């Protein structure tokens, strides 16, 4: 068996780096965002993106861009003090990358119906939306690895049981199930907790597809020469599984995870769109898009579509990554 020459890996690198930047931006949302995502400015509802100017009305060019407010110009400042925030559990600060002095407001991506800064919400919302993806995918694929691996390796009744269960899970209309689950949850849990619980359910229900794929891989791997040889040499089932079969499946698993992650990001967006995700005032890309269900917003405020653009960009990066991963896996021997 000859191995194909490995692809240059550039796609892979680009995707990884780009995704890394995006995730870093989400983690440091507090620093990058000029405002707290829930601060309402009720006089500035549905304001289109603020223009940054370099040339003032008298024709002078300024090096530092500025915004106009009430006829005065407010220059853009860096490392300003603003609303306090935390990164993770330990790092706390109130310095933001950029901002303008009060009473001007820098609304680079416009504001929503309550006058909240869309850029800040996009950055904070990225935390929820972007981490929902890999978390859910990891859970699904882990479950799929275990169950699919067992089914493929042992065959027989184990296989039958697992595969029929998989079909059942594929057939369940999980979306409607989630409404029921939400109703059954107590009202008082933190919105993030409720959301995580729901996402876990989605991920658990979604083990079926990866499981089937893994099972296929394992089935084909089981009959390979080196596996047969290992068995002949007295290797236990667990040993064979661990050392020979699963490592092969892991390539597929990784690709699956890269494909599933955007699907779960979309699942979170869909849930939030229908009111099942994080509650107000916590932003997520899904609940930011939910407002587009209103005809007046859909037809009048174009900047409210931007979270959709962000989702699109992230999906493209993930697919690029999955593609690149797939090529690497395909290039592996066996």
């Amino acid at each position, binding site marked *: 068996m000859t191995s194909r020459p490995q692809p240059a890996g550039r796609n892979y690198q680009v995707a990884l780096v780009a995704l890394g930047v995006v995730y870093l931006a989400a983690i440091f949302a507090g620093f990058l965002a000029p405002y707290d995502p829930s601060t309402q400015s009720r006089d500035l509802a549905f304001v289109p993106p603020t223009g940054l100017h370099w040339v003032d009305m008298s024709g002078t060019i300024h090096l530092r861009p500025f915004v106009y407010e009430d006829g005065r110009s407010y220059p853009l400042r860096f490392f300003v003090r603003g609303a306090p925030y935390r990164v993770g559990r330990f790092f706390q600060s109130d310095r933001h990358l950029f901002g303008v002095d009060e009473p001007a407001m820098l609304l680079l991506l416009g504001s929503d119906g*309550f006058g909240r800064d869309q850029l800040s919400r996009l950055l904070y919302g990225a935390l929820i939306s972007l981490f929902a993806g890999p978390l859910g995918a990891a859970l699904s694929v882990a479950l799929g690895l275990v169950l699919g691996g067992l089914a493929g390796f042992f065959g027989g009744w184990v296989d039958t049981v697992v595969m029929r269960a998989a079909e059942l899970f594929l057939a369940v209309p999980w979306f409607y199930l989630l409404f029921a689950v939400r109703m059954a949850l107590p009202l008082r849990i933190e*919105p993030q907790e409720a959301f995580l619980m729901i996402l876990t359910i989605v991920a658990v229900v979604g083990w079926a597809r990866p499981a089937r794929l893994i099972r296929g891989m394992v089935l084909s791997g089981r009959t390979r020469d080196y596996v047969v040889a290992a068995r002949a040499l007295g290797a236990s089932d667990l040993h064979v599984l661990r050392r020979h079969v699963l490592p092969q499946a892991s390539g597929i698993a990784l690709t699956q995870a890269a494909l599933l992650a955007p699907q779960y990001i979309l699942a979170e967006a869909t849930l939030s769109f229908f009111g099942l995700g994080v509650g107000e005032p916590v932003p997520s890309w899904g609940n930011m898009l939910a407002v587009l269900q209103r005809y007046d*917003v859909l037809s009048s405020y174009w900047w409210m579509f931007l979270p959709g653009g962000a989702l699109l960009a992230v999906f493209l990066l993930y697919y690029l990554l999955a593609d690149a991963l797939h090529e690497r896996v395909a290039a592996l021997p066996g």
Partner: protein
Amino acid sequence: MTRRLAALTLALSVVFAAGTDVASQQAAATEWLVSRADVGRPGGQLVVIERAEPRTLNPVVAVDAPSKEILARTTADLIHVDRETQQPQPALARSWTVSPDGRRFTLSLRHGVRFSDGQPFDADDVVFSFTVYLDEKVGSPQRDLLIVGDKPITVRKIDQYTVQVDLAEPYAIGERLFDSVAMLPRHLLETPYTEGRLARMWAVGTAADAFAGLGPFRLREYVPGQRLTLERNPFYWKTDRAGTHLPYLDRLVFVFVPSEDAQALRFQAGDADVTTRLSAANFEVLMRDRGRRNYDLLDAGPGLDYTFLFFNQNTVAPNDAPQVARRRGWFRQLAFRQAVSLAIDRDAIVRLVYRGRATPLWGHVPPGNKLWVNRSLPRPSRSPDRARERLRSAGFSWNAAGALVDKDGQAVDFTIVTNTGNTERIQIATIVQDDLKQVGIRVGVVTLELRTLLQRLLTTHDYDACVLALGASDGDPSTEMNVWLSSGGTHLWNPEQASPATPWEAEIDTLMRRQLTERDVQARKRLYDRVQELVAENLPVISLVSPSVLAGTTKGLGNLRPTIFDHHALWNVDELFWRGRPAGGTR
């Protein structure tokens, strides 16, 4: 030959004369109701947007709003409250007298009226109709409205065109009792009634010729999922001042569009001529486009709906968790509710949620209800400082982080529930959440499907606070008895009390019962004013806002007089006509 011819001619002319004599007797016998509206011209169709499909076309069992809206166009009542003047007017009853003690109504029916299938209408139909509505086995939702002093009304036929109605005790609303109680055709429904299958009659699949009604229109066809078409009732008993038989329109078509945004879209696209449930936001969108697309937008002013926030004040059950008891303790303190009311920015709600097309409220009767609103209630402006003062007086304080804590040092936080699918209520909850953050209270917002929500509110009482809205169909206090009586099933914050939990609820009970039998309008108003005062003082509900009624119609609809009462545009559908377009219709 000549003699025979003469005899034949004579015979024929006698017959002819007798015939015309009989015919003119019949025509003279019909006592038309003459409309005072502008004289219009017949023809054309009107397409109306309806939010959901009707569940039945049987007036006896209809409960859902779409069924009732369609049935209101195909049926008629004895006495009808004019939606514009709010006064009862003769309908199928051409006149009536009331006994001095207010317990007996004698109605004189209009002569010569016929159902939409041509059969005559008389007192037998009236007696039959009331028998059906009052029969417990039939289970009509109308029955509750016809029980006065805990006893059903009795209806007796005096002669072919006179009926007598007796009440157990005087009823404040008097003859308004008869509004919207549809008169049924005995000739079609008596047999099914005696056979016990009346409730199943006239379901949505029934053929059009099996119906008969006294309204301006009759069913022509129903295509489920698409449209329901009504056609002109040729036997309708009204004419205009020029003697033309009403209604003017040939056809009335209902199209079904479930979501409010889709309704606005379809109206804008020209698929319909009338839409009456526009949200303020969509109203603005449509305003921008109206020149180009030939429609009129109408703001009928503050309506009868009122949105409010209320807290769970049910008694704590012995097996409830201590946090539940603690929260309930906060909610039951008047100072806490007052503080919440002072902290809420009602103007922001009017501005952001309703684009200015709403009125802020401090009492539960909105200004659109002109006959009953108490205009002397105080209207404290928003003041987070005064809110904090109230909280301090109730033993609350603030910790180092700025969060509100109660006497025992527990942080004050609660959840507001509201129903999914109503973006305005969710926005209101978000605004309240932010307002309460300013006084240190952490509030979560959770949305639930309506039926689940109602179950939590009315059955399991498992909630903290809720944003909800109520809307009376005619503004009369008697329609909200179940909300204000402490024993009422929709006494939202603490329903179905065995005995009033607080002195002010006991007072409201007394006042509501008295106003039900008080026939003097001024005295009744005073009683209900006091109820409004008590509600505004004790804040079982924190009234927030009352939206305006917004509608849109294609240009050129004559006699259109939108009101805040149902049906906002079609209450006088028999008088609507198209100007300038003989066979008008959608744009």
